[in-house]
């Protein structure tokens, strides 16, 4: 299991745009972290530092406290797998199974080990029945799940998801939530970029808010979405989840998820009853 650390990381694109400024971030093995913030706040640039697709212009990126500056991207792919937003920018095989095989094969898996990894990944995203189908005969939702399976099959200790629920219908979103729960339960680190605050608050134990290339907030959903932080969230065009807004309006404290609103209402009702007696 791998610890990830960004130490004083800054990044400037070749055209001069600064995308990251002095970012310090440590992610322990098995954590589930969501990265949120407006477009252009540095979220995509940050995750690309994790597997070497982009190299820091300042600072260091460390895997298990070792600088990855001299390690090739192909080698880092064994540690950090990234699922990008648009499935069509990745799918190239004529069969679903072959597409999923690509990643693990690149990492050197063969034979029975390879088949097992592929089967498990397909089952996790509910695509086992489509193993021999042409990816382009699947709809958009299933193609997105296919790219997720392709990375899952690689068995990387860290999985990064770029906008996993965008464009998905209700079933697709639920499937993604289930997969994340499963891989987190297996002890793998999950990092996701998302604009869906309900999905973020309900699925991740830690939320990192980015704005202007910097980390603005870093904590649990309850901490991050609490009313005191709303001006900061607004500065990076993040709207707190509905549950948090309702909770604030009813004076229930920090309630980032539906369950927490229900719990808060229940305990305030109980307190109210206790007062009455």
């Amino acid at each position: 299991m791998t610890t990830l650390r960004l130490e004083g990381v800054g990044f400037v694109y070749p055209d001069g745009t600064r995308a990251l400024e002095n970012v310090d971030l440590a992610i322990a093995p098995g954590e589930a972290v969501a990265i949120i913030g407006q477009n252009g706040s540095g979220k995509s640039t940050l995750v690309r530092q994790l597997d070497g697709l982009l190299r820091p212009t300042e600072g260091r990126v460390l895997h298990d406290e070792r600088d990855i500056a001299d390690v090739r991207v192909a080698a880092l792919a064994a540690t950090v797998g990234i699922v990008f937003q648009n499935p069509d920018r990745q799918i190239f095989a004529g069969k679903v199974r072959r597409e999923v095989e690509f990643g693990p094969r690149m990492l050197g898996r063969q034979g029975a080990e390879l088949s097992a990894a592929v089967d498990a990944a397909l089952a996790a995203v509910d695509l086992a029945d489509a193993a021999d189908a042409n990816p382009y005969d699947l709809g958009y939702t299933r193609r997105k799940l296919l790219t997720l399976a392709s990375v899952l099959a690689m068995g990387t200790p860290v999985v990064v998801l770029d906008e996993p629920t965008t464009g998905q219908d209700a079933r697709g979103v639920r499937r993604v939530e289930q997969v994340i729960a499963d891989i987190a339960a297996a002890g793998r680190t999950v990092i996701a970029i998302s604009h869906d605050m309900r999905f973020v608050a309900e699925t991740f134990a830690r939320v990192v808010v980015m704005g202007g290339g910097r980390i603005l907030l870093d904590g649990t959903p309850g901490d991050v979405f609490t009313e005191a932080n709303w001006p900061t969230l607004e500065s990076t065009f993040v709207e707190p989840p509905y549950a948090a807004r309702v909770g604030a309006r009813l004076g229930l404290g920090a309630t980032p998820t539906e369950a927490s609103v229900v719990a808060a209402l229940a305990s305030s009702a109980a307190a109210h009853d206790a007062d009455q007696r």
Partner: protein
Amino acid sequence: MLVLATSAGVVRPLVRASVLLSLPITISVVLVSVFTRAGTTVLFTIGPFDATLEGVEFAAQTLVRLFAISASIGLFVLTTDPRALVLDLERRGVSPRFAFVAAATIEAVPTLVERAATISESQRARGLDTEGGVVARLRGLLPIVGPVVITSLTDVEERSLALESRAFSRPGARHLLWAMPDTGWERILRWLLAAVLLALIVARIVGVPLPVID
């Protein structure tokens, strides 16, 4: 031509693009010419094939010509503003649809390059090694070519639907809002180039000896 390219500031991308684009042809030209060109001075032998000096010379000639062609096309593509081209073609009577296609073709190159880069990222993140030796890089082309083609086709489809909804296929002329400035300088240069080309063609036909790469 390299002088022009330097003054336009596009030498490096031009050279890179020209070399990359002509790579497949270059390889086949080299292989065919070097080994099968009839010649007397044998340099080395691989199996039944002799590599001759004449073959190498011929390959060199062909490659220089190829480079000249691809570089001039590349120069045109890299320095032409598609918008200006579209406007001007239309003002001179070309149908707006054709003019658009010409401009879009020019735009296609930088778009393709960008697209290939994004796709390459996805594949590298799955372990595709693009930093290794030549063989590794060549093998790595397949997982990139497929998605490039498909996303390009999807792109074209989306674009054409959007254009249709802007009445692009309506027949008839349009009243353009703007005009492309045409300086006297440029007009003179254009006529001059046409005249020189004509002169070269006539000279060739008539048999006047011209400096040629031989």
